[in-house]
Each structure stands twice: as C-alpha cells, then as structure tokens.
C-alpha cells in the first residue's frame, strides 16, 4: 500500500486537484485521511483545521463503506476522493457508487435518541466543515462535497 507523500502533491504548475481512488474497504480510510491532511498542510491550513478535515473525510468514507456493507452491495467498488484546491478553500469530494442514503433520516434518528450511534458522523461533518452538500441519486451513488475555508480568508 503506497503511503501518501507530503512532497510532490503540488509540484506541477497546474495541480489544483488531487484525486485518490481507494477500494471501498475500512482499511483504506486512514490512507485517504492522511492524503487529505497532506494536501491541507501544503495549502497552509493550521493544525486544528487539518484535524477537522481528517475527521470529516474519515466520516464521509465511513458512511460510504458502511452503507455499501449494510445494503449488501458489492464492496469491491472504488470510492473517489477529490481534493479541489482553491486560493481560499479546500473542497473535498467523496463519491461512491452505492445506492445512496438520506441524510435527513439519519439526522432525525439522532434527534430522537442521544444514545443513537448512527448519525454521529454526519453531525461531525456538518459541524467541522464550513459548507456541506449531499447529492444522492438512486443507482448513481452519493457525492458528499465538503468545503473548508482557509483561516483568515
């Protein structure tokens, strides 16, 4: 398994996007977390914001992988993680090819019971990122787009 390297992420002049394709399996979540952290560090995010990005990325991937497992969908499908670097923000996209889920249902479940384990991930993503969009289409998978602005911008 290749380790993401701190160096080289932004060496090409037009590199404003880093794309990572990982198998839909739990052991690869930490690989994506580290890659996002490396990109964020390159962009000048502070320690706390980098940690926020790692947590949110991990939770988005966990959602995708768990959902594929609970619905019995093939888990040999890949998940694509895109880091889109902007001058004032980092946008992380996590795209899976599962059947999608309804974030509103998860939220409602969490409201009903504080000891409810599901929904914690969404709560973390929405609290730690500046902007979050979910796009789900039946049969087309789910896209989670998370934006974190650079402090001071």
């Amino acid at each position, binding site marked *: 398994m290749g380790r993401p390297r701190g160096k080289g992420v932004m060496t090409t002049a037009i590199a404003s996007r880093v794309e990572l394709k990982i198998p839909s399996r739990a052991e690869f979540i930490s690989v994506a977390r580290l890659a996002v952290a490396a990109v964020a560090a390159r962009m000048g995010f502070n320690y706390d914001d980098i940690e926020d990005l790692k947590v949110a990325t991990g939770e988005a991937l966990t959602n995708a992988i768990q959902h594929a497992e609970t619905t019995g969908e093939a888990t040999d499908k890949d998940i694509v993680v895109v880091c889109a670097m902007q001058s004032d923000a980092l946008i992380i996209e996590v795209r899976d090819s599962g059947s999608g889920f309804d974030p509103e249902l998860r939220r409602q479940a969490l409201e009903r019971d504080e000891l409810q384990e599901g929904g914690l*991930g969404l709560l973390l993503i929405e609290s730690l990122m500046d902007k979050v969009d979910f796009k789900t289409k039946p049969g087309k998978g789910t896209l989670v787009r998370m934006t974190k602005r650079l402090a001071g911008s």
Partner: protein
Amino acid sequence: MDRTDAELSSQQVDGQTAVLRIGGEVDLYNTPQLKEQILGLIETGVRHLVVDLSDAEYLDSTALGALIGGLKRLRERQGDLRLAAPRPRIRKVLEITRLLNVFEVRESVPEALKDWGARGGKA
C-alpha cells in the same frame, strides 16, 4: 490479527472494575476490536469500566458508537462506563456529538476510578 494503528489493553482493578486503555487511532477498521474488548470485559463480570483516552489520538464515529454500546450494556447491569483524560481533539469530537452529556468524563484514570456509587448505578 492485523497490525493496526490502535493499541488496546485492559487491566482489571478488581472483580467489577477495569481500565481499558486506547492508544492511537480507532476507526471503522479497528472498531470491531474495541467492541470485542469491551464485550469481553463485561462478560468477565466488569461493571465499572474506565476508558483511558490519554494516548488516544483519533476516535471516529464508529469508535464512539462502540463506547456508547458499552455504556448502554453496563447501565443495563447497573454499571457505568467513564472516559478519562481525553486530549483536546477528542474532547472536541465528544462535544460536537453531545457525548460530553452522555459519558462522565474525568481528568485522569485515578479520578475516574473514584465514587462509583455517585452516578449510573449503586455499586
């Protein structure tokens, strides 16, 4: 067992009390091990469990779920699960997920081992 980034070890304090130390990172990959450890301790008769987070660097929502599961089971048995010494990052995650209101969180393991009768079942 696969080499993972989490280190889990437990120590029995007395027949009903144990300390479970979590080091490193726990996520979807190694949460099953955390669940197993907690269930194993409960099976041996532990009712009061302190989870030592002083060396824990990262807990994802599934790891938190495992801790919530342990808490539920222990409360059903008139026991409790307390968290000890979380680092600021983990405290932040507990705060966002409103789990600071669910778990009793103490500053150190010795502090967490005190006064079990005070909350969550009379020892």
